[in-house]
């Protein structure tokens, strides 16, 4: 098996995540799909790190994880706030900036 297959798997996971963002309308599931895309990118970074034989790819993947953690914290707080005011987590319902 060639290690290139890791890149194909990463591309497949990224595609599934992107399709999920387009298809689903529950804000929490959209967030999960974004996480899936970030994870797929991390897998590609780790595979490239092995390809090039240095650790820079792993450092970038590490920073991606940190940014993803911060993003999830703020994003879920926004979802909870929107749910409190509108009693719905669907992104279709949030069509106005202010209720």
């Amino acid at each position, binding site marked *: *098996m*060639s*290690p*290139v297959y*890791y*890149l*194909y*798997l990463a*591309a*497949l*996971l990224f*595609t*599934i*995540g*992107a*399709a*999920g963002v*387009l*298809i*689903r*309308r529950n804000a*929490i*599931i959209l*967030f*999960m799909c974004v*996480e*899936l895309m970030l*994870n797929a990118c*991390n897998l590609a970074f*780790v595979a490239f*790190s*092995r*390809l*090039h*034989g240095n*650790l*820079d790819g*792993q*450092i970038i*993947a*590490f*920073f991606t*994880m*940190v940014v*993803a*953690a*911060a*993003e*999830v*914290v*703020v994003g*879920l*707080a926004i*979802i*909870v*706030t929107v*749910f409190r005011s509108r009693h719905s*987590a*669907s992104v*279709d319902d949030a069509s106005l900036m202010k209720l």
Partner: protein
Amino acid sequence: MSGALAAAATTTSTGEAVQFWVLGTVAVIGALGTILMRKAVHSALCLAGTMIVLAVFYLANGAYFLGVVQIVVYTGAIMMLFLFVVMLVGVTAADSLKETLKGQRWLAALCGLGFGILLAAGIGNASLTTWNGLGQANSGGNVEGLAALVFTKYVFAFEITGALLITAAVGAMVLTHRERIERARSQREQSEARVRTGRNVPPLPAPGVYARHNAVDIPGLLPDGTTSELTVNATLRGRGQIRDVSGEALAELAALEQRSERWLGRKPKGEDGKGANGTPANGTSANDAGNGANGNDAKRNDANADGKGVDERSEDAEHHKGVAT
């Protein structure tokens, strides 16, 4: 393993190939489950599975530190945060299947397919002939190598990361914090208000306690045998998650009474010693034994009286017998 990685130029070992195909299938199934499951809890669990598989892939690719961080941070912290928010927002809130834009799903799936083909074609066209492997880079230890890079070449990005994390924590607190507008009512004021309205002055009744069931979602019984909605928590009442076991309990009680009477040698009510069967509804058999010609009639009557309580049924059958004779 690092030596083997350094030796492997363009191919990997058979074991890694088997691992890749088995776990890669699991990862893709988990990803598909994430976007196809209707309930958010199921999606979160599928995504957690995919993330654990990715952690194994990181370990297989020589990123030992990242593999552990993936499990601790992603599946341990981020996915649990997701589950907490799903619980807050409502577990039972399933996604609606109504399309607001016509044909949007198929277009989205088509876009995804095209995008995937583009990515795969790009990877296929790249000339990735040699794989250096991480044997040399990991020779001093993976964590030590990462630490050396983080604190030298990437130290500025690392500092910025600290500022980002502080901002995220403060932002989450600011977003979810709610200022209390009115003063909280004290316990005395609440009890005074309760007495003034005159409704539910004493504490609310407790949920039902049965021999085999004792939980908050089981309503208690009123003296006439019907269930009392007041004994169940208002949230469970609103969700319709009340588990009614009173019919079961009453049937069990009737069966128990009959068994004990048989054990004591007494004749059960409405029976003349011949047909001592164990079923709670003994009206039919009593009729069969008593007046054979009338048995079918009594059965039909019994079937008509379906849905009534046990006692009512036997009474009905007795009544029928009396009329016929």
